[in-house]
Structures are given as C-alpha cells and as structure tokens.
C-alpha cells in the first residue's frame, strides 16, 4: 500500500480524476471520429456537405435515442433485446389509433405509452420472477412483434394525420432536423441523469454490486423497473420518429435493430458486464458508426461488407484495452 503516493483528498482531485477517466476511451473515440471525417472527405467529394451530413443523421438518430437508456440499463447489469419489437408494437398501436382518426398528439401519446407499457412488462418479469433479463427479453421480443402481427397481419397503415410527418422528416432550423435536435436534447438529458443525479449514482452502484446497493437502502428492483420502463419510453419515442419518417406502419418495422443498438452501446465503452460506461462515449460511438456507415455508403460499399467492418470494430474495441494492459504489465514485469 505504501507504493501509492499520498494525495490530498480534495474535490479538485475528483475533478482531475474525472477528467482523466474521460480522457481515455472518449479521447480515443474522438480521434477516430476525426480520422474518419478526414478520410471520408478525402475519399468522397460529397461528404463535407451540410445537407448530406444532415441526411446521414437520419440513419442513426432513432437507434441512438434508444442507445441512451440502453447504456444506463447495461450499466445497471441488465439488457433489453426486445427494443425493436417494442418499436413494432408501439408503431402498430399508433397506426390503429390513427386509422380511427385520432389527432396527432393522441397518436404520439399512444406510441410512447405503449413503449412504456412494454418496458414495464419486461421490468416486472425481470424483477418479480428474478429471471435474467436476456432470457426475458428473448421471449418478449417474439411476443411483442407477434402481437403486432396479430393486430396488423398483412395490412399496412399509412393514414397518419397531416403534420405527423414532421417528427421524422421535419427540420427545426436550416439543416437541423427535428430528429437530430431531439437526439441532442435527450443526450443532454441522459448525460445529466447518469452523471449528475442520484439516479445515475444508483445505476452505477447497482451495476457494480446490486446486493450492497440493496443493503444501502436503494430500492434496487424499483430502480430496475424504472430503467426498463425508460428504455420502453425511448423505444416509443423512436417508434414515433420512425413511423413518421416511413409514413407507414408494418409489423416488420425496425427488424434487427436491437443488435445495432447494443453494438453502439458497447462501442461507446459501456461494459457489457455492468458498472462502467458514459453517455459521452455512447454519443461518440453513435456518431462514429453513423459517419463510418455513411462514408462507406457514399463509396457504395455493400452493406454486408460494412457489417464485417462493424464486427471487426466491435471486437477490436473490447480487445484493444485488454491487449494494451497485457502489454503494459509485461513491460512492467520486465523492468
């Protein structure tokens, strides 16, 4: 223990160490983002165009909105792989009420409420029956989308009220789409929630040691329930945006999104084992993935090749830090 040098226990020290922590993974991501930008603008003359970049954001904002609460959920040692199915179910219900002639605000409200309901349902199954969340959500993934199929069958709903297209297609100012602005807003909200509030603190504590958190008076199950519901709510929000962007609903909407969302979160430096990760990391990972796929799209690289690249990125992201520490300890031993 003597090897550790004494440092004054002052708040400045917290700040310094916070900065230090931030300066690792996130800096690395920022560097890559810049690199990708430079490469993309070098490789394609179309890359550095505000409208094109703005268009590119549509490819990830909805997924990114779910990645935010998903990051918190994974930090708290849980996971939800039913999110894409929640989008489908909540879009289906929006479609049904829209068909009955509901006004915009009702449609939106229904979308968000159904999302919240699905999240709550996941949360109740996880906390009430003490089943691992990955197992629960494998089941509800089929259940939620299955219910969409029951309700809609082979129908398609496209009679959304006038003006509903604003959410997924409208612009707030110049090239800034409503989706993008909403994402920035929620990124700030979740940053505040995770890093500034007691709720965020509890999330880390639970993710690191649920038992000790419970013994410290945290209502662990309630917290998990809220997190699942939050993921549901944001899936509902994403469903509103996606439905509005597509202008129509089908049960097969958002197929396979869960994996890209989880990929974003892991790429952002959130530990899949819980307890570690930041919103800044997730946001950067989202931007990185958006830029990489958009850049490759401009070069017309087939999607399946892109998925190879994303797969390699994912594996490197978790392996690199391990390799680096291995190398460091080897060096330390040699000394």
């Amino acid at each position, binding site marked *: 223990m003597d090897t550790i040098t004494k440092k004054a226990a002052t708040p400045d020290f917290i700040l310094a160490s916070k900065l230090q922590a931030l300066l690792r993974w996130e800096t690395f991501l920022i560097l890559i983002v810049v690199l990708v930008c430079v490469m993309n603008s070098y490789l394609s003359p179309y890359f550095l165009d505000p409208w094109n970049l703005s268009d590119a954001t549509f490819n990830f904002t909805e997924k990114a909105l779910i990645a935010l609460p998903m990051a918190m959920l994974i930090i708290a040692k849980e996971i939800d792989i039913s999110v894409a199915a929640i989008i489908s179910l909540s879009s289906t219900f929006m479609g049904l009420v829209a068909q009955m002639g509901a006004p915009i605000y009702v449609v939106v409200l229904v979308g968000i409420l159904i999302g919240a309901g699905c999240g709550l349902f996941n949360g109740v199954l996880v906390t009430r029956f003490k*089943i691992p969340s990955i*197992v629960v959500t494998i089941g509800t993934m*089929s259940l939620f989308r299955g219910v969409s*199929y029951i309700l809609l069958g082979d129908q398609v709903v496209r009679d959304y009220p006038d003006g509903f297209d604003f959410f997924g297609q409208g612009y707030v100012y110049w090239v800034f789409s409503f989706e993008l602005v909403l994402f920035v807003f929620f990124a700030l909200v979740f940053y505040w929630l995770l890093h500034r509030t007691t709720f965020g603190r509890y999330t880390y504590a639970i993710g690191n040691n649920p038992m000790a958190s419970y013994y410290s008076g945290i209502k662990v199950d309630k917290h998990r329930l809220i997190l699942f519901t939050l993921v549901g709510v944001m899936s509902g929000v994403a469903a509103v945006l996606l439905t509005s962007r597509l202008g129509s609903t089908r049960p097969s909407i958002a197929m396979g999104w869960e994996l890209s969302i*989880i990929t974003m979160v892991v790429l952002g430096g959130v530990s899949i084992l819980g307890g570690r990760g930041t919103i800044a990391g997730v946001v950067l990972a989202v931007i990185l993935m958006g830029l990489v796929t958009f850049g490759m799209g401009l070069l017309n690289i087939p999607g*399946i090749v892109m998925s190879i690249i994303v*797969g390699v990125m994912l594996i490197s992201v978790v*392996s690199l830090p391990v390799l680096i520490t291995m190398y460091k300890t080897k060096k330390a031993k040699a000394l």
Partner: protein
Amino acid sequence: MLRRFIYSREGVLSIIVLVMFFGVGVINPDFISLSNSVSIFNDTSILIMLVLGQMMVILTRCIDLSVAANVAFTGMVVAMVNQYFPELNMAILILLSLVIGAFLGAINGLFVWLLKVPSIVITLGTMSIYRGATFLLSDGAWVNSHQMSESFIALPRFEMLSMPVLAWMAIAAIIIVFWAMKYSVWGRNFYSAGGNPMAAFYAGVNVGKVQFYAFLVSGTLAGLCGYLWVSRFAVAYVDVANGFELQVVAACVIGGISIVGGVGTVVGCVIGALFIGVVNNALPIIGVSPFWQMAISGLVIIIAVIANASSDKDKARIILRKPSESIDSAQSH
C-alpha cells in the same frame, strides 16, 4: 427415482412436451404416428446438435451468437467445394465441415480464453463477420441442388432402420455429449468452470481453456450442421439459418440451462429443442394463423422460463426444524 425425475425441471418439461404432442394428436391423429414422430425428430435434429454445443458454452457462463453464421459459412464452403470438385469423397467433405466449423469456433474461443473479453460481444462481432465472409466468398450467388453431387444430397436422407442418417447423427451426438458430460473429466469441467470459476481454478481447472473447448465444440457442431443444412434443403446461400441463433438460445433456456452458468443437463436441452421442434411442426398442422405463430412462441418461452424460475425457489435452506422433519432426519441417521 421416477418421482424425482417427474418433479425435476426436465420432468416437468417432458410432461409439457408430451401433453402438447398428444394434444395436437387429438386434433390431427396423424401427427402422433410413428412416421411423423420420426420426421419431427429428423426436422429437429439440426437444432438439437446446435443446442448441445450451445449448452456447453452457456454452462461456462458464455454465449455463442455466431452459430447460425457459422452454419451459413461452413455450409457455403462445403457446397462450393462440392460444386467445383464433385468427385471428392463425402468423408473428406464432412471432415472439412468439421474443421472449418471448429476453426470458426476456435476464433471465438481464443478471444474469450486469452483476452478474457465477454463472449456476447465477441460472438456478436463474429456473427456479422462470418456472415459477411459468406457473402464475399460466394459473391452473393447460390449453390443449387443440381450443382451438388448426388451423394452430397443423399447422405443425410439415407435411411437406416427407417430413420434418416440425419436423425441418427443427432442421436449419436446426444449419446456422445451425454457420456462426455457425465462420465468424462473433460465434460465435468464445464460444470465446475461455470458453476464457480474461482473454485474451479483452485481445483486445477483451467477455466479459460474450458471455455475455449466449449466454443470449439459449439463451432464444430455448427460446422457439421452447416453441411447438413445445405444438404437437407439442397441449397446454399448467404441467408442460410438467419436468426437461428435465437432459436438455439431459446431452446437452451426452455431446457433449463441456466444462463448464469453451471446448471443444465443434456436431457434438458434435448427436451428444450424438441419442445421448439414440436411447436414448429404442430402450428402448421393444427392450422394456427401464421400471424399468431410468433406471439405464441414468445409466450411459450416466457411461460417456460417462469416455470423454471419458480421451481428453483423451494430450494432454500431451513434452520427451523418442524417436529415431523426432525423425526425424519433422526431416522435417517
């Protein structure tokens, strides 16, 4: 003994499967005929083999999401080899599928073993990579039945004792894995490494290596299934077995393989796979609307895991001695 089985998780599950099986038989008596039972088993064989591999992986606290992509890649390779060298002996092709599958599994296993990175992330990555590689390899083209040699297609269909080779292969896999998991040190290591890695380490078990073996076996079986799949459906293309990994994991979960490691039996996972097999085969027979099928399978999974979870609850220890119990225990001494 029998009573113990009936009350165990496996017992409850097999009763549910049997009730389902005969329930469908009431609606359509042909369903429970011997030949149809064989055909359901045959249809489930590939799933069973993949589930056996996945069980080992899950026992060691890992998960292998890349199995379906492995099936697609290996299937494509052997199909293409067969297409260009139709004279090549089937034994060599099967060996090839085992080797390729094992290789892909080993890649997962090495990352988990040597770098200690979470398997869910690794296999999520290799899942995209293997399937992408299938696309690059085939350039998106299919290999069709008439491009495959006769023996390539005939092998899994060849009937012995009125059961196809495919089903016999599954039975062989079940027996081998059952023996290994019960009677070999190598197999018992999966339980100890997953049940308590620290203690396993203290007992001289190399946990990382055991995890590596799990991925190796899972990959090898997936490779074999790759050949079996393209041969059975007589076509190889990029999307082969797309999304099948979830069915494999679901079968494990239904079969009572604990996702947190260390608990699960071969019997359980075979029943879990048969459960899915019976549901898959029964739904079209009893004429359930295709729109209902997905919701039903989701509901079934949820109910099964809830049942599994609650059957665990009674196992708490008891300090207080009820009068009757103390007599019991006194007698047993």
